[in-house]
């Protein structure tokens, strides 16, 4: 979900993706770099992502991932169910108001 959310802002290559996720979470979430790739492969296979070869800011040949329309839909689904879950957790955790 985080990967999809991050890629919605624009295409990125693997290393950059890991950096962006880490930074945007305020270093709270440290993503294990290597384990990112199996996840990316899974999403490629599911068709949520597309990949093509591009050039990084350092002029290296890298694979750039881009979210597909199917990926957007999946993200929306996940976000809404995640929101519901959060809401549920919040209600449970909140002291009884009634």
């Amino acid at each position, binding site marked *: 979900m985080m990967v999809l959310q991050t890629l919605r802002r624009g295409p990125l*290559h*693997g*290393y*950059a993706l890991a950096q962006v996720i880490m930074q945007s979470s305020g270093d709270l979430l440290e993503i*294990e*770099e*290597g*384990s990112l*790739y*199996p996840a990316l*492969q*899974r999403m490629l*296979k599911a068709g949520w992502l597309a990949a093509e070869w591009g050039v*990084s800011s*350092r002029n*290296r*040949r*890298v*694979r750039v991932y881009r979210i597909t329309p199917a990926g957007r839909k999946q993200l929306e689904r996940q976000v809404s169910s995640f929101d519901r879950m959060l809401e549920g957790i919040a209600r449970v955790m909140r002291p009884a108001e009634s």
Partner: protein
Amino acid sequence: MSWLPDFLRRGRIESELAEEFREHLMEKVADLMDEGVPEAEAHARAKREFGNATHYHEVSREVWGWTWFETIMQDVRYGARMLRKNPGFTAVAAITLALGIAVNSTIFSVVSVLLLRKPAAADPDRVVALVATNARLAVARGRVSAADFRAWRAANHSFTDLAAADPDHIFSLTGAGDPERTAGMRVTTNYFDLLGVAPFLGRTFQPGEDQPGRNHVVLLSYGLWQRRFAADPNVAGKTVDLDDEKYEIIGVMPAFFRQVAYLARLWTPLDLTGNNRPGARDNRSLIVFGRLRPGADADRANAEAAALAARAEQADAASEKGWSAKVLTLQEYGIQEDQTRSAMSLLMAAVGIVLLIACANIANLLLARGTKRQQEIAIRTALGAGRNRVVRQLLLESFLIALLGASMGLAGAYAGTRVLRNALSFNEYVTAMAVTISLDRPVLIYTLVISIGAALIFGLVPALRVSAADPQATLRQGGRAGDLRRGWGRNLLVGAQIALATVLVIGASLMLQGAAEELWGDFGFDAKHVMVVEVALTSPRYRDPARREAFLRGASTKIGQLPGVAAAGIANGVPFNSGHRRFSIQGQSDLPPSQRPRARYFAVNPEDFRVLNIPILRGRVFRESDAAGSPRVAIVNRAFAERFFAGQNPLGRYIRVEHSAPAWSEIIGIAGNITASDSVRKDEDPHMYEPHLQAPADEEMWMTARVTGDPNSLTRAVRSAIWSVDPNQPIGDVRTIAGLINENDAGEFVCDGLLAVFGLLALILAAVGVYGVVEYAVEQRTHEIGIRMALGGGRRDVLPPVLAKEVSLALAGAALGIAAALPLPKLFFAMFNGFRIQNTIGIFLAFPAVLLAVVFAAVYIPAARAARVDPVEALRYE
């Protein structure tokens, strides 16, 4: 199959992934170096933080889901290598399986033709046969009267149309070529349209062509057209003589048009107008076909058929009481009429047993080999192969064996279908079916299914047992431990094998014995030396009784003069081709016509008793003087006297046989019983005889002759003798009554022959299997035998314990098999019309004894060989 393109370019995907990892690291290194980390440390840190690249690589690969495929390919390659390394084992297993599969696929190729193939009709599932049923008379597929057919055709709502066929007429075909008698069918003019089959040449019948004056038109079968008309493409419009009347040929039906359940070489229009006579309702001679209306289903049609029959029952209770009707699909009707289902299920059961025995053999081989392979498997397990992987590996090897066996089996089945085609050529109807036997798609699918099934059957138990062994124990003890032969698996397999073989061998022997008793049984006459030939006196010139009599007498005399003929007779029917008539006995209560008793009826000349060697037990035989003008006389057989005159003397009493001119006849003689049908024993089959000169003229007459020499050498002479009296007289085949029986029952004999082959095969396979297992077991005990011998045991002390276990296993299996086979005679009796058997005890004891002898030999030979081994030699392995 979305994974397939991914799979095919998996090499590229993987190299791209590797490159991506590399770039990731390089980016990271560059970042770190920007932060001022020295290059060498940057590399190390990047790698450390990235983690195990190979692991991520593998996880990524698994995402794409082809690893399972690759490991299976590895297992396949490994399995193929193992099989190649053991060519002996592989060959034995594959050949054993190939035998089992070959017989299965061969028999299934016949099943495919007889039970699976759709009849020749457009949209065949919508075509049904309407049959009459009568629970009290045990009629399941009765024919229908013309009156019922007309009423049903007018009143029904389930069918677009109904058509009727009368399949019983034998036509006299004269004109160019030898005069012949040929089976034909008279059909309503809409018959071919209803079936939806177009002619090969010309046209089919048009409405109105059943009316007198227009109805002399005929359609030929493809075979008749080829044979008698030399495949003349301009045959339509020519004329042919049928029953001495001119018919115009209007077309030829295609070769594939095989009439369901009946052989027909030609078709003429069926005229139903003559069936309005009173009493015609009792004449149920028509097969009625219907095509279901769109939207109507079989249930509805069934309900309507019953309702129509009920209406007829109300309208005419005298003839219709107890009769109902139902529909059967054309295919089902054909199968039931051909009565092939029982034979096919029996044969399929037999080949199924052969395959099971083959599977048991292979399973035993695998178990034995598994013992030798335990070390290898223990090492694989110790190196981290999971049990699933080991089982999968072993099963894959089984599938490879199955694949090998299946391809060899198909080659064998191809040969088998050729053999069957030749065996199934005893009459035209069967031949037409047999030429279509081939390895068609259902057969190939069936072969695939049984091969996979067989692989699971013979592969699963050994795989589970071999893989369950504890690798530690195996590795610790070296090669000699891990004994798999002691186990329920092997005992079960051997016992089941012997039980199955016993059942099959007994079953096959019972069928053979039944056939033998039928064929070589005591008929009361010598079936192999009584020749019969049918002559049809359909020609108008034989409506004159004097000319008719002159011809019959002339032909019979000529035949009687032939060298090698001991006696020649005249009859309206012969054993294994005769009919029944109802009769009344004077002085006994007179029953309504439909409840009068029936007996087999023959109208014969005096000589016919000499031909068949029928003894006259009391009274006298017919004389030439028992002719049209003289007092009417009759002879009954002993079974008749016993059943209908219980205790009284029939001589001098009067019976009245129902036919066109019923009159009382005095019983002047009692004849001995003869067998005249394969479904009734001769002491239970009442016969009555009248002089043919006092009986109404029958169109169908038979010339009979008792011959002394080789009957085949006389065929031509008999035909010439008849044609010397009337060159235009059509005659049927000249053959012995044994030949007649064979033509009726050849299908059964083929079935029995096949069963015998399968029984033998089962016996051999079981013996080979038992031999192999025992030999292996004894081989494993060589060491033990050696010790016993070294300790001073003689062969007599050493062998019995080895033998005892195997022999008791065999005894248990055989006992189980005999118990399972006990209901077979009853089952066969229920399955096969006319199956009966006298001596069963011999079979139940003799054949298991043979099997046990084989088992004993299989045990004794390897055990004795082991005992001959020098004890020192046996102990040296220690």
